[in-house]
């Protein structure tokens, strides 16, 4: 399997997500939290995000129907969604959330509806792009910099062995020679 090709593809997909403004610097902050202890953290957070944002969008749509012109309520729902988008670095979605909230402030129902449609579109696009990205990264696991950790552990192990051996030799050496039975 040509992992280098797949890694290049993954890197290209990710670069596209940033260049096209779908993701921002906060996504990199989330990526930095991934390590050997949590090797799939980014994907887990993304899955949680799409589940949660799907629920929030659905709640908002119900509120738009059930509570007409209740801009304060609509704004409260959107504030939650904007917070999630912001935490994960979903930049375009966050912008649409802010646009919706601006329309709430201007008490424009058409504006709110328009923003919501754009938000749903961005939600679907980001989901599809991230799914493609994770599919490729799953097939091509990243080069793990395990060498550094193993090197550190090896140094420590070697020094511990040397220390033990030195201690043993110093204690056993002359005394051992004295107690060795004569041949």
């Amino acid at each position: 399997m040509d992992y280098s090709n797949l890694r290049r593809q993954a890197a290209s997909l990710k670069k596209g997500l940033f260049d096209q403004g779908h993701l921002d610097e906060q996504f990199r902050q989330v990526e930095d939290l991934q390590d050997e202890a949590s090797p799939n953290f980014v994907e887990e957070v993304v899955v949680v995000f799409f589940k949660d944002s799907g629920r929030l969008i659905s709640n908002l749509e119900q509120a738009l129907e059930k509570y007409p012109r209740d801009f304060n309520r609509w704004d409260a729902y959107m504030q939650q969604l904007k917070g999630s988008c912001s935490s994960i670095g979903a930049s375009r979605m966050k912008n649409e959330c802010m646009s919706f909230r601006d329309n709430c402030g201007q008490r424009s129902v058409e504006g709110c509806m328009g923003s919501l449609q754009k938000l749903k579109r961005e939600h679907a696009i980001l989901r599809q792009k991230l799914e493609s990205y994770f599919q490729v990264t799953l097939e091509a696991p990243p080069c793990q910099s395990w060498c550094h950790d193993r090197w550190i552990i090896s140094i420590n192990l070697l020094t511990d062995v040397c220390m033990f051996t030195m201690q043993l030799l110093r204690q056993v050496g002359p005394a051992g020679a004295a107690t060795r039975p004569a041949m």
Partner: protein
Amino acid sequence: FCLFLGVLFYSVGRPLANHPCIYKTAASCCHLAQLIKLLTCQPNQQASAPSIPLCCLCPMSTTVQEPPHVLAVDDSLVDRVVISRLLRSSKYRVTTVDSGKKALEVLSLGHESVQLIITDYCMPEMTGYDLLKRVKESAELRGIPVVIMSSENSPARIRRCLDEGAEEFLIKPVRPSDVSRLCNRAIAAMPMR
């Protein structure tokens, strides 16, 4: 000898592997320094085997002890996942709850174990500010530092929280460096309870 190597690896290597990476190198240097000391000193000066430091430069501790316990309060599931991972990667124990009410329940069950509360401001029913007030009004809880997080950069809100006794006010999205810096500072400044 192989059994000995295995025991050494598990007793020394694994804890070291779990330490923050910048301290692993420092710990290795400590090991090497200890070895050099052993090699260069005379046998009769050798009082006892040098102790193998688990982490001699780690600010948290040189002995094995419980890491600080942080209570994270946020109604957003995504934020709870991120803040939880962020705190765990800085070697804190974390309990997450989704409301101020649940935070007070956790605190009533075992407030002695909680060394820091980090809470979102905007939450339904009980805001982070309300939680802060309840904590600072309680004789048992007021010693616990509280950090507030909010996506709204409102000077009035910030002022209000700091006046009420919040340790710090963070603007969301929070950065890992901000959280670990503040947690270290807040916990270090905490009076002995």
